[in-house]
């Protein structure tokens, strides 16, 4: 029998040679666990992410915006499904993955624990939240686990409209009445810092970074991705005449990047631990949706088996 050590060396050699790992390949248990955690958390984020935006579907300002928002929220449901399927290839059932979310054992992105107070927030979510997610997801199209990488390619193709429709909303508001411009600025003020937190703790404090980089699950660090996001987004804010709410934000000629102020990590951990403005509301909505859908799932199974019996009898 091949020793685990040899298998691990073979596995790492595959990764180093830029070969994808596929579901039936041998993989270290920690690689598998690490992926289950990351992919399921990613899936949960897509699904919970529908809630803050769903909040505005009935109140979208016109039919064009409503159709766009509906399509976007439907995409998020699809993205959740691609990711749940990828997660399932790692040997965990869909049911247990969803149970882990509903019991609070699994996390989702903390950004969705902030409320959408005005229509401008829908713009800010597309522009900033999806913008930040795209940074991360473009990197993940090259992740080492095949099914995860393929899900990411699909998601990235669909995601770019999400960011553009959001930026368009904010751009239109910022050219509107003084009240509308204030609304756009207020949304940027509230979403800027939580968006930067989406990239996770600084590299030195990130629990999984070193291992994830060695296994090429992640290929760029939290701080690198965050910097890229800031550099691109600051320019986009300037174009539409909005001000990024960071007094320490300054172009650093030498580094070729923006320097930025320190993130409030106390707030970050506080929201992660369940004390954000909407944690309770989001979980309540997810649990209610799951429970209220139970009879539909059961009825579909009953109907399918009835049809199968009839077909057999015929």
């Amino acid at each position, binding site marked *: 029998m091949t020793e685990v050590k040899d298998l691990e060396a073979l596995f790492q050699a595959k990764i180093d040679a830029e070969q994808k790992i596929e579901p039936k390949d041998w993989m270290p248990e920690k690689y598998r666990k690490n992926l289950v955690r990351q992919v399921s958390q990613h899936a949960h984020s897509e699904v919970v992410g529908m809630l803050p935006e769903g909040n505005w579907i009935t109140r979208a300002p016109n039919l064009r915006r409503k159709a766009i928002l509906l399509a976007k929220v439907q995409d998020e449901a*699809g993205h959740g*499904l691609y990711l749940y399927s990828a997660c*399932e290839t790692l040997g965990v059932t869909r049911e247990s993955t969803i149970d882990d979310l509903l019991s609070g054992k699994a996390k989702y992105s903390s950004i969705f624990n902030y409320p959408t107070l005005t229509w401008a927030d829908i713009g800010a979510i597309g522009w900033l939240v999806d913008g930040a997610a795209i940074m991360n997801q473009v990197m993940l199209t090259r992740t080492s686990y095949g099914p995860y990488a393929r899900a990411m390619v699909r998601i990235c193709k669909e995601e770019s409209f999400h960011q553009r429709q959001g930026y368009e909303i904010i751009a239109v508001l910022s050219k509107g009445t003084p009240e509308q411009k204030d609304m756009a600025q207020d949304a940027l003020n509230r979403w800027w810092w939580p968006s930067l937190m989406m990239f996770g703790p600084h590299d030195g404090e990130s629990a999984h970074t070193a291992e994830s980089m060695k296994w090429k699950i992640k290929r760029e660090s939290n701080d690198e991705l965050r910097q890229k996001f800031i550099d691109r987004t600051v320019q986009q804010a300037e174009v539409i005449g909005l001000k990024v709410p960071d007094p320490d934000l300054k172009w650093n000629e030498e580094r070729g990047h923006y320097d930025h102020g320190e993130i409030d990590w106390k707030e970050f951990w506080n929201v992660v631990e369940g004390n954000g403005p909407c944690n309770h509301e989001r979980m309540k909505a997810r649990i209610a949706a799951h429970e209220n859908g139970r009879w539909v*799932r059961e009825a*579909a*199974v009953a*109907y*399918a088996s009835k049809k199968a019996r009839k077909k057999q009898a015929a």
Partner: protein
Amino acid sequence: MSDNPNNWPLWEVFIQSKRGLEHKHVGSLHAADAEMAIENARDVYTRRQEGNSIWVVEAEHIHASRPEDAESLFDPADDKVYRHPTFYTMPEGAKYI
């Protein structure tokens, strides 16, 4: 596998993007039966005109080769370069060959 009978089985989805092309694996989903699997596949995998035809197969009916058998299955082809047209030397000046 879950033993809860109310869980929908897993289906693998194959989409033909255009007439004349092959059906290609795009992903999977859960559904109570084949009809629902096709409807869900329509919603999940063809929202942007990606599809012209859908196949669904219950995942448990797919049999796959084992990664550890890859060598014995595929290595025998490695030393048979003469199966490729570029292996052959053509006389100078010959056309359309």
